[in-house]
């Protein structure tokens, strides 16, 4: 009787098992279910690994854990608008780590500072503060940030198995490439060469031949026209957000962390639209009030909102509000000129020379070729 039962049970569950099993195999083979710890282990061993999962979002714990283990002396911190700073911009690349993506709102910053190991000697944190962090009409209530989150592989299969079929149907997944992937973890990394490099910076893949990239900033301009998706119209600066910055600077000072603030740039065309609109009064007010908050704590804020401040042009922007490595080298040079602690960590002449050799987006390594697509070395 027991044997009959198990036979029937197996027969009944087999089709269901296959149905869920195929996506599970894709998720395993693509590295989507790989733990962030094993990715960090490989990256710290020096293996070039591009980490770009699609179905999970563990950027916060990934960046936090890497920061704790690498003990960098210079950390870039912010949203996706800081991810273009590369370790190769510095004389000692191993001393830099890009924690871009760990911060999605201003309230994420203070908890992240706990990820900065006490063993790091007076680390410098280049803190990028997106302008909309200070717009009270930008609703981004994500709750308490969780920098200790771990992956539940079965939970991912359970939540995402149907999405895998959708992506297979849209030819977004190629089985031969799954099996060949060695230095890429996650479907984004395997299929589009997009993901976090060893230094934490983000590879955008082949931007020259990109079929889902923004053309002529159409999407960003649409956001401005409709006042949506980070470009909500707002007249006043969020007082609570400014207070939170003050608290961050206080916490940083108490932990011997030197904060260098920046407001990241918009593409020139986008900036001129923002300037022409009378619906973004909060940005004008922010550019006056935020530097004052930094100044009160003896820190400096670099305002790159206006791309003219670094001589950036539309062509070097990935989209309306993400500059490329070219843009970020210029920003770094400008910040270093006024920040001795940064200046001492880079070779200005070499960076200027590399900037001259740079392609549209990417900046070559010290002795390397022009990295047109921005993927560059890992």
């Amino acid at each position: 009787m027991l044997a009959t039962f198990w036979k029937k049970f197996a027969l009944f569950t087999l089709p269901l098992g296959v149905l869920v099993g195929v996506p599970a195999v894709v998720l395993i083979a693509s590295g989507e279910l790989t733990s962030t710890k094993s990715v960090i282990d490989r990256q710290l061993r020096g293996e070039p690994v591009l980490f770009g999962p699609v179905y999970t979002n563990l950027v916060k714990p990934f960046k936090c854990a890497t920061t704790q283990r690498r003990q960098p002396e210079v950390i870039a911190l912010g949203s996706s608008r800081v991810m273009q700073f590369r370790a190769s911009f510095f004389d000692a690349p191993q001393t830099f780590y890009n924690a871009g993506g760990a911060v999605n709102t201003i309230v994420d910053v203070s908890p992240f500072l706990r990820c900065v190991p006490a063993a790091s000697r007076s680390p410098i944190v280049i803190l990028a503060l997106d302008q909309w962090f200070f717009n009270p009409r930008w609703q981004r209530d994500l709750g308490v940030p969780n920098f200790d989150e771990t992956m539940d592989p079965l939970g991912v299969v359970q939540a995402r198995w149907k999405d895998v079929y959708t992506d297979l149907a849209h030819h977004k997944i190629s089985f031969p490439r799954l099996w060949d992937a060695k230095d890429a973890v996650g479907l984004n990394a395997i299929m589009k060469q997009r993901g976090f490099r060893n230094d934490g910076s983000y590879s955008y893949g082949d931007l020259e031949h990109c079929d889902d990239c923004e053309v002529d900033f159409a999407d960003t301009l649409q956001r401005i026209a409709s006042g949506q998706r980070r470009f909500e119209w707002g007249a006043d600066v969020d007082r609570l957000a400014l207070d939170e910055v003050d608290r961050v600077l206080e916490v940083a000072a108490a932990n011997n962390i030197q904060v260098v603030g920046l407001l990241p740039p918009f593409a020139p065309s986008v900036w001129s639209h923002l300037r022409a609109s009378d619906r973004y009064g909060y940005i004008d007010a922010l550019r006056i009030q935020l530097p004052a908050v930094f100044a009160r704590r003896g820190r400096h804020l670099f305002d790159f909102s206006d791309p003219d401040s670094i001589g950036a042009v539309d062509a070097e922007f990935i989209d309306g509000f993400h500059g490329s490595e070219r843009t970020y080298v210029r920003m770094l040079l400008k910040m270093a000129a006024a920040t001795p602690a940064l200046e001492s960590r880079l070779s200005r002449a070499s960076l200027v020379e590399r900037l001259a050799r740079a392609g549209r987006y990417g900046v070559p390594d010290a002795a390397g070729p022009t990295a047109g697509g921005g993927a560059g070395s890992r």
Partner: protein
Amino acid sequence: MLFNSFQFPIFFLVTTLIYFRLPLVGRWYLLLAASCYFYMAFIPVYILILAFTIVVDYLAGILIQRSEGRRRRFFLALSIVGNVGVLAIFKYLPFINRNLAALYAAFHWQWPVHDLSIVLPIGLSFHTFQAMAYTIEVYRGHQKAETNFVLYALYVMFYPQLVAGPIERPQNLLTQLRELHRFDYERVTDGLKLMLRGFFKKVVVADRLAILVDAVYAAPRQHHGTALFLATVFFAFQIYADFSGYSDIAIGAAQVLGIRLMTNFRQPYFSQSVAEFWSRWHISLSTWFRDYLYIPLGGNRVGRMRWYANLMVTFLISGLWHGAAWTYVIWGGLNGVYLILGVIARQARGASSSQRQGEDASAVTVLVNRLATFLVICAAWVFFRARTAGDAIYILRHSVDLTGLLRPSLLLGPAGLTSSRGQLLGAFVVIGALLVLDAQSEKQNVLASLRRRPVWFRWAIYYGFAFAILFMGQFGTQQFIYFQF
């Protein structure tokens, strides 16, 4: 561990495979270890609270049996204080603290204790009530004290019903745990079918409705009256599908292992009165309150006013059991009022005529009674679900505006239930499916009738449920609603 996680089927399969290969005593250890693992998948450290109550009640049971007179009463009191004390600390202390702070503030005084943030251990109210049922039954002489610690611990921790019931009695569960249950094909497959139905109710019905309900109840003042009304109706079905789904899975899982747990729901929305509703809804809790609170208070064998007071006290405490907030107390009180009004109405009509009426009632009368009962139960659910009493009153006051039923644009906009027509249609479809399931269960023993059908028909039904779960199920991190209790 959540029943609706992919971990659970694997855990259940492995445990069951080993279970049937072990002798009786080995099964106790296996089930206890599995139950510990199951519970510790939530917040591991909270197993210490369970361990504390288990040790206290295990010793109390033995001491009650060995003692006589006032000492018996003392050890019973010790057990009840231990269990209620744990509940008070972890569930009610923050509530008491908040209320004291509010009281002080009303007098412009400063309450010194800041808001307490204590995470409520999963299923605390369930296992403490099950543990108290044991010591009370030992005290009453209805149950022998269990001297085998592992078996007693298993009685409290038996994983299928550990975190959300049914709240078992020792006479039923302990007795069955002592028996060696051989593999029985019919019993096992019936258990699996119950589990399948439970998963369907949870992930297809409850979690789908939750999306709409949560959006409206999060900001009731931004929604039209019709949306508020429908969200409340949807919540009535959501909580039923959620909780009865959990009970189905629990009862089914236990049945596979050979243990028959008590029925917890009997198509409650087919009730023709609130009194009948409470004999069909969360039966294991209702009977617990009846046996250990209402009857000891005197039940209905007292004067009329005292009887009403007994009903009210029972339901107010039941409300508080469901959650440490005034909204739950109001919900309990409202149900108490319904029952008292029902008693008064019955007395006014005369019991015999009422009974005759029930027997001879036409289909229309039955339908009207059921609808009326459903609507008053829904009105009480508003307090159960709303974030504040103020929100609840707002929802009740505005739910009478049903003009949106005539203007669908009001339902499918920002002030409506959802912007997705498919989502709204899906909600009605899953409610319909739930009602069909219940109508079948009301008429006949569905499992027995299914067994008489040809194989192809049965397998089509099973696959229908399985595919509905896989394709229509909402697989996120939705816990069962009753876990918070």
